[in-house]
């Protein structure tokens, strides 16, 4: 069977033009996807059955036993952390928020170690953005700052940005100018009309200089900023202003280098300033396919896009205090549920060491280093392949992920629904031993 217009469940591009060949209940081939997307959609290294650790060993158990043990861990914890959510659908994320409320826990997403600083920047300045189709149809200037879509978002240029023809951009790449700013010459830089190699950690200063040059206050800019001569920056500022429609895409190169959210705050201000001269928009290059979705779901359900603490029954948000790494580093959480993410691979070492000391519940289709330190492991259907639901593209566009094949694995939504049900049933009936 051939399925068309399938939505990819790898990165924030959420390409919706994939063709899937399905035979005997298995995905045999994926066409049009990039290598990253195709590898994800084909599946690999699945966890076979639910497991609970007994005498130090993960032992296969029934799903119900795993749900009950997970509920028991969450009920016995004083402040459980519910973390991950970026690679699952919104329907599961909504259940996650409900579960966090039920167990008076903290819910946080992978954004905390990714575009969390971008979110804080947006809290400071707002986000002058657009849908990707607007960029495709209008942008004659594309800026990639601290991101490398050629390797991380392989179809971005061809579907949405530098190389795609659109209504007012019929020539595609030939009619556009592409600027790349980075600390090394990436593959993306090879596609650039202007590549600006800046000194590592100097993004904030370079953006500040550009803001002043764009605003006509270049007299205050020193002769060299971030390793770039002022004359080069001045011509870059003029170049940006010469666009009819400019789009800035930024990545972890500026969210996780020196300055962090201040870099984003500054970049957003630069874009706002450019709008006094021409049209400019800006967008973070979101990684996991539905990391945008967890931010949206949390915002409409809790008022805040990440790092929400329900310990006192009401939503409390204070990044630096309530984010996953902060809690783990302070030993301020005593159990964790990790879903659709791999904290053991991506968190700072001391926080992973602490994670290994507390009970961890993992919900994931795939085995990964987090599995090794988990107390309960619950394998799930792959969202977008074996389960349907909603995902939000990096520009905030909601799409419905399809179910391509049947599976015996329960979906993330079903698993969470069952854990919530078990929490409600067991509340007040179980005896918790002090850790």
């Amino acid at each position, binding site marked *: 069977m051939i399925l*068309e*217009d399938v*939505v990819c469940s790898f990165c924030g591009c959420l390409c*919706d*033009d994939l063709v899937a060949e399905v035979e005997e209940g298995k995905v045999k081939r994926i066409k049009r996807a990039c290598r990253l997307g195709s590898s994800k959609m084909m599946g690999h290294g699945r966890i076979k059955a639910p497991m609970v650790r007994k005498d130090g060993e993960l032992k296969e158990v029934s799903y119900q036993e795993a749900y009950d043990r997970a509920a028991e861990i969450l009920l016995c914890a004083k402040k459980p952390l519910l973390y991950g959510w970026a690679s699952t659908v919104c329907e599961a994320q*909504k259940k996650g928020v*409900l579960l966090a*409320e039920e167990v008076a826990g903290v819910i946080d997403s992978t954004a905390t170690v990714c575009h969390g600083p971008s*979110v804080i920047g*947006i*809290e*400071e*300045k*707002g*986000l*002058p*953005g*657009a*849908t*990707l*189709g*607007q960029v*495709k*149809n*209008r942008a004659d200037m594309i800026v990639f700052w601290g991101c490398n879509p050629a390797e991380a978002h392989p179809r971005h240029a061809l*579907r*949405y940005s530098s190389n795609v*023809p*659109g*209504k*007012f951009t019929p020539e595609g790449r030939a009619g556009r100018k592409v600027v790349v700013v980075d600390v090394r010459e990436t593959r993306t830089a090879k596609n650039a009309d202007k590549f600006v190699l800046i000194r590592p950690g100097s993004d904030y200063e370079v953006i500040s200089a550009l803001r002043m040059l764009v605003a006509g206050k270049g007299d205050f800019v020193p002769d060299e900023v971030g390793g770039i001569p002022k004359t080069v920056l001045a011509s870059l500022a003029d170049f940006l202003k010469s666009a*009819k*429609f400019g789009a800035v895409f930024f990545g972890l190169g500026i969210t996780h280098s020196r300055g962090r959210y201040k870099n984003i705050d500054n970049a957003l201000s630069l874009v*706002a300033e450019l*709008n*006094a001269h021409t*049209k400019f*928009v800006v967008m973070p290059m979101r990684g996991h396919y539905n990391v945008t979705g967890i*931010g*949206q779901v949390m*915002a*409409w*359900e*809790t*008022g*805040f*896009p990440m790092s929400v603490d*329900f310990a*006192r*029954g*009401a*939503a*409390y*948000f204070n990044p630096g205090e309530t984010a996953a790494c902060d809690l783990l580093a302070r030993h301020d959480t005593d159990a964790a549920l990790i879903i659709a993410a791999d904290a053991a691979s991506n968190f700072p070492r001391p926080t992973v060491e602490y994670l290994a000391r507390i009970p961890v519940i993992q919900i994931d289709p795939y085995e990964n280093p987090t599995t090794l330190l988990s107390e309960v492991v619950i394998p799930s259907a792959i969202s977008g392949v074996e389960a349907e639901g*909603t995902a939000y593209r990096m520009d*905030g*566009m*909601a*799409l*419905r992920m399809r179910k391509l094949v049947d599976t015996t694995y329960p979906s993330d939504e079903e698993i969470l629904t069952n854990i919530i049900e078990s929490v409600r049933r067991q509340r007040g009936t179980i005896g918790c031993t002090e850790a």
Partner: protein
Amino acid sequence: MIIKGGIVYDPANGVFGDEMDICVENGRIVEDAKGEEIDARGLLVMPGGVDAHTHIAGKKVNTGRVMRPDDSRLGAEPKTAVCRPSTGYTVPNCYAMGYRYVRMGYTTAFEAATPIIEARHTHEELEEIPILDKGALTLFGNNWEVMECVRDKDLSKLAAYIAWGLRASRGYGVKVVNPGGGEAWGFGANVKGLHDPVPNFDVTPAEIIHGLAEANEMLRLPHSIHLHFNNTGKPGNYTTALETLELLKDIKPSRMRQVIHVAHMQFSAYGGTSWRDFESKAPVIADYFNQHNHATMDLGMLLFGSATTMTADAPLEYGNARLTHNKWSNHDIELEESSGVVPMVYFRKMLVNAVQWAIGLELALLTKDPWKVLMTTDHPNGSPFVNYPEVVSLLMSKPKRDAEMATLHEQLPKRTTLGSIERELDWSEIAVMTRAAPAKILGLGDKGHLGPGADADISVYNLRPEEVDASADHQLVKKALAVAKYTIKSGVLVSRDGEILATPDGRTFWVDASVPQADIDRLMIDLQEKFEKYYSIKLSNYMVQDAYVPNPVVIKAGSQDLRSEGVA
């Protein structure tokens, strides 16, 4: 259920403060019923409130939440046995939206602006809002297909596109925001007036508005076009408002209703040539509404304090951000719209804000027929909806208005006629402006009244209308309206004295309009090309799937079929 002995205001059925019992069965008002009795002796009873213009769901609302953690921190309430946790003031979370409307006795609210392509998001949020019945108006005013149909004078294809767009977005009606301006904003420009051509599309705002209004009537939609004027929010814009209203005078309504509903009239009743000589032109606007019967308005009343401005009028929001140096979000939507969000504080001491405040009141008080005026704040643009009781108490009390004016800028009396207006609205007029008229203007036959067969949405207030002088005791009025004694939604007692008792799911209204297949066929040729070349998603992934509207009420309309049926 029987609500016993209330003083009932049900103006749609000619009931103006009569003592009567209201009977409820199976979620509807009936002639006679048994069962639970609710004691409402001597208390004010009205149909559940209907908000026909509010921003409660979708991308721009959520953008407001994301960029305003300061706002989300306000109004935090912990979970209860029945309620999810609440946050926010101008941009509450979904749960707080439902609880707070219901606490005030409101049972229906319509989201006023949804782009077709982002309607899935709107419905995700609408579904999370508990208790309320709701709907969403769909944006058409800057849509490429719309502008091309208008340019080609192909009204039947335009009607087919509207029908298709309403179905694709599960939308209720045709919203038009700064027509042409949103497209011009794609390259950072705007249109300056009704006859200023839209760049690259060879049409004018006047042609877009007229075309959409004609197509709306061809389709016999329950609601008229719902228009946010060009030049909204600018000094001197009352001329644009009058010119636009004149433009639509000749259009014949296909139903017993207006042919144009004006959104947040307050923001378009401005005189002066700049903010310096800014003044109210509300008397001129109200006079026009008094002389003509083809238009209705909602107030978009502005109150002092915190607000979050959010609109598909993106150039307006850019202007707000430049003016206030506040944070600015913008969101352009491919082939369809643009939009923006800017936090705002309206100051008592600022003359411009004081004049804006006065204009909203003048419009409501100078327009003679309350059926033409809806009480709104364009939540959260003028003020959050929780402040509706403040607006009502101002409209009912000249002493309250005078006391307020005495605290405002000394120049204010020279810029508005408010001080000279003696009129104080009575409960019948308030019931019209907050219940009966919004239901009628939207075309919701089972809402806004308490006749047999109507939805059993009822509010009972802890106020004795026969004893309370609303003019002198305006504080009592405000207090009583802020927290309904009882709110009943679809026959279920959902709140008592502000405590939420139950959170049944609300329903979502959308309009399914039929059009000739030949027009659809012609339309699809255009759309296939647009999806092939210009949209960034596929046609097959575009339409809102049924999964996003789990409790639909489908209203049938169309050029062929006029049967109306509810699918619960």
